[in-house]
């Protein structure tokens, strides 16, 4: 299973030995690349509950492959969302379902954000993504 090109780039960037400051700056830079959501799209229905910050997630299936868009009012979360989207966008539903996203964040050196005690909502985002893709 080959990685999407943007995911390759992310993996290359984040798997280097980097300081926490560099990682934070990188995360924020990735977050800035998220395509913005419109006011209407930042609706309560699209909001992922269970996050410390506000997070919105939308997904659509085009010809059997999924495209997600996401936003957050917190910058580092935006970075995590961007790194999530580059990994999942364009995948067929079956591949998305079998994808180990915890492993993806572990490869990026960001596994801590998926630890059970984190309330930053990445868990909740993954759950919502699975719901959207399963519907």
């Amino acid at each position: 299973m080959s990685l999407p090109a943007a995911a390759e780039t992310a993996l290359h960037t984040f798997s280097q030995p980097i300081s926490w400051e560099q990682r934070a700056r990188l995360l924020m830079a990735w977050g800035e690349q998220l395509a913005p959501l419109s006011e209407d799209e930042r609706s309560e229905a699209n909001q992922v509950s269970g996050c410390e910050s506000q997070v919105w997630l939308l997904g659509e299936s085009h010809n059997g492959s999924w495209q997600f868009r996401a936003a957050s009012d917190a910058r580092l979360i935006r970075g995590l969302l961007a790194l999530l989207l580059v990994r999942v966008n364009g995948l067929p539903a079956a591949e998305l379902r079998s994808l180990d996203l915890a492993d993806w964040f572990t490869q990026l050196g960001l596994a801590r954000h998926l630890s059970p005690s984190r309330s930053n909502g990445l868990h909740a985002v993954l759950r919502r993504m699975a719901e959207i893709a399963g519907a």
Partner: protein
Amino acid sequence: MSLSSPWRADFPALAALLADGQTYLDSAATSQKPQAMLNALLGYYAGGAANVHRAQHLPGARATSAFEATRQTVADWLNAASHDEIIFTRGATEALNLLAYGLEEHFHEGDELVISALEHHANLLPWQQLAQRRGLILVVLPLDASGHVDLDAAQRLIGPRTRLLAISQLSNVLGTWQPLNQLLALAQAHGAITVVDGAQGIVHGRHDVQQLGCDFYVFSSHKLYGPDGVGVLYGRAATLQRVLPWQFGGEMLLQTDYYTAKFRPAPLGFEAGTPAVSSVIGLGASLAYLAGLDSDAVLAHEAALHQQLLSGLLARAGVRILGTPQTALASFVVDDVHSADLAHLLTEQGIAVRAGHHCAMPLLRGLGLPGAIRVSLALYNDSSDLERFFAALDQALEILQ
């Protein structure tokens, strides 16, 4: 001036956390434990565990007497009139739920329950849900700008329909001592039952429940340097008689046949099932440890450290402190910085502080904030912890601003 805590070495976790790169400034969530408590837990388990108030055998008798000795220690700590006024629960939250269920039958449609806008969810949800069950009116006392209950408003809102006042002693978000004397007097003038949530207050200074004059006082062990899994409900004997048992089973009964039962009076009638024996014994050891400290010195140390925390925060551009904290903690936000981002970068640097709504969602929403960072202090913290915190805060802000 650099303050060092003379009690820090009594808490082995502080050194362990530091060795792990962690600076612990989240004691309002839960505290670290003194060696004396660890010894008591080990002593109990290593010496032979047993259930309490059941068996005749020696281990059972020993466990029961150690367990009951803690009840007396707690009664002494609060200056309760009798150890029978001390009920062990699983936590402060359970103690408040016990009251909300156990007092339920005294309330009728249209009666008013009064709380304040700064209550922790533990002292909000039991009353909110009780109000929904019984058709009662939940009255929320507003705060003034400093983060204290507005007494003028309280004067208007506490009235002849008030059946119960449930109020925090020390806010877990704002660090403000609430005007308990005035509020309790207002409620008592109308014959209302009074409940004080002492979860934060109990940790700072000694409080005399008879002097306070409340009907109930609630706290949890784990914030008071004791084990988790134990809370305390103090109930003034006369009012405690009005509380019905809410959980059933175990040894809380006097006699039963298949169809009816007669229950024990307080405290055992409210302690259905096997209690957290080891944790209660551990709480006794923590209180004994605390009783051996110079309490004036502890308070002075905490106050001086709190001043350092406040002045350090105020010295930083863009930092806004919530309310006017008087003791032990400060919650803050930084202009144009999301507190989730700040929390993220403090965590990266090994600073253990709390971020989010602090189990007081309506309060944060009322302040127009999605969340805040809370730094909270305990007697084992010292200036070195704050220095590491401020260095990390500056680093984080440099990245975020």
